């Protein structure tokens, strides 16, 4: 059996602050197989984004962060790599899409220049003309009808939805094996968000890219993910295939998250309990969803 694209085992994280250690992740385990779309869902402060930063190797450079546990990327231990090696992975083998596309593109460079930078990560000697040609093809892939005009534009000249598509094109430009999407599209309006997610889903399916999709909204995840991990206060509380989880949410916290979403069928404003002790109930794993190497 080939190694999963991403394998996280018992990952712990704490930050050293003025008042001692603050524990953020209490030993989380998750895996993503090749080409699989996996979602990590939880409220703000639950540890979703720090997990993404550890995978990218960004948090490891912070002096106050204490990290233990293993993160294997395509069978290689990230911890055993040097900083330079981890740096080489970013933007090539793994890439990321952020929440707000307009603020994550550089406002003083044209899209064409920024795309060139991205392509240089993989092929350092690539010329501008060659890069533009590649970029235009990739922009066409994300349903941008006038790639030349977009390449000649600055990010602020494009709409939010357009910038989001540019980001997706850039993130997939070097054919990464893992794409991390941190709340993509929440800064966009609903119709644009729906289009963007559909497009992203088509592309990652075609390229067989594994995706870690981070969100607080189970509704957004429902149509995108194959498998879902629900995270609460630095612990995974439920793990299952998307259909299992939505048909039969078993953890009290997952049920609360699901109830928190207003229904378009109209059932009034959601009634939810504040931090209940029930939310700390142990991990629920659905049938057939054990971590590799563990007895499911």
């Amino acid at each position: 059996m080939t190694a999963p694209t991403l394998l996280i085992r018992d990952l712990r994280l704490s930050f050293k602050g003025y008042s001692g250690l603050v524990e953020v992740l209490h030993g989380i385990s998750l895996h993503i197989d090749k080409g699989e779309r996996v979602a990590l869902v939880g409220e703000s402060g639950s540890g979703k984004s720090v997990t993404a930063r550890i995978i990218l190797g960004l948090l490891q450079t912070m002096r106050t962060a204490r990290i233990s546990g293993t993160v294997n990327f395509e069978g290689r231990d990230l911890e055993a790599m040097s900083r330079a090696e981890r740096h080489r992975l970013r933007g090539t083998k793994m890439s990321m899409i952020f929440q707000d596309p307009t603020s994550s593109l550089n406002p003083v460079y044209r899209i064409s220049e920024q795309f060139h930078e991205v392509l240089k990560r993989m092929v350092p000697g690539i010329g501008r003309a060659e890069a533009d040609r590649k970029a235009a093809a990739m922009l066409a892939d994300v349903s941008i009808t006038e790639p030349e005009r977009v390449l000649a534009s600055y990010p602020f000249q494009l709409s939010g939805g357009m910038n989001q598509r540019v980001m997706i094109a850039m993130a997939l430009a070097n054919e990464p094996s893992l794409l991390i999407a941190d709340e993509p599209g929440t800064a966009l309006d609903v119709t644009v968000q729906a289009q963007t997610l559909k497009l992203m889903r088509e592309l990652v399916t075609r390229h067989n890219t594994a995706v870690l999709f981070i969100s607080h909204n189970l509704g957004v995840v429902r149509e995108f993910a194959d498998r879902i991990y629900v995270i609460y206060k630095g612990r995974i509380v439920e793990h299952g295939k998307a259909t299992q989880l939505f048909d039969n949410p078993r953890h009290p916290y997952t049920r609360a998250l699901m109830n928190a979403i207003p229904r378009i069928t109209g059932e009034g404003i959601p009634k939810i309990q504040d931090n209940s002790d029930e939310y700390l109930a142990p991990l629920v794993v659905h049938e057939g969803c054990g971590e590799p190497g563990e007895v499911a």
Partner: protein
Amino acid sequence: MTPILSLQSVSKTFTVGAHEVRAVDDVSFDVAKGECLAVVGESGSGKSTIANMILGIYPPSEGTISYRGTVLPSSRELSHRRAIQLVQQNPLSSLNPKRTIGASLRLALDVHGIGERSRRWERVGKLLEEVGLPADYRSRSPATLSGGQRQRVAIARALACESEIVVLDEPTSALDVLVQARTLKLLNELKESRGLTYIFITHDLSVVRNIADRVAVFENGKLVELDTVETIFSNPADPYTRGLIGAVPVVTREEEALRTSLTEKENNANA
């Protein structure tokens, strides 16, 4: 009964360089006291321009806006500001980071001369308690609060001057779903206890379904549909409205069914 707010053939044209952009095009509607009117549409549909005109930030190019039967003057007066208040999308940028929560709220009371000077600090504490925060948050700065707590402060500030109409501009879209649910509950409670009128601007139809009484749908500056929330969701007349409902991310099969039935109608209409 006179509506609390009435828009009569309101248009707004902005001049950008050489050409003119008609952001709002001949829009008329009334808002009754105590109702929650949702204003929905995609970005660029003119919803924020409508809100800014109601707030008196700029006057309409054509048409009139009346509050309790009196046409609002083009310059923004204190009484107008006092009656109609705003809660913005991002509480981090709408609260002054250098002022304590208490000072921000106190300012609203001072400007509008509400209550006796010596009792205002106490009043600030009461306001905070009304939105579910402890009174001693008065001395904290916005940076020490969570997003949901900050939004509560912004709501308290909008209520400080005893306003009657609150324009809520995407008040929960920057919050996560659990915090959103709590904030919506608070807004509903305040509406009941204070008899407030809400103009709720959003693109999230799932929120609209559960808080609004009526829905106004905007597309390219035009009002395309205005009806009760039940009618809009069970039988939307406009294809654009159906598209908006179809784009809402859902979690249950019942919702999926409603969405699909609307999309099918759409396909039949196109065929």
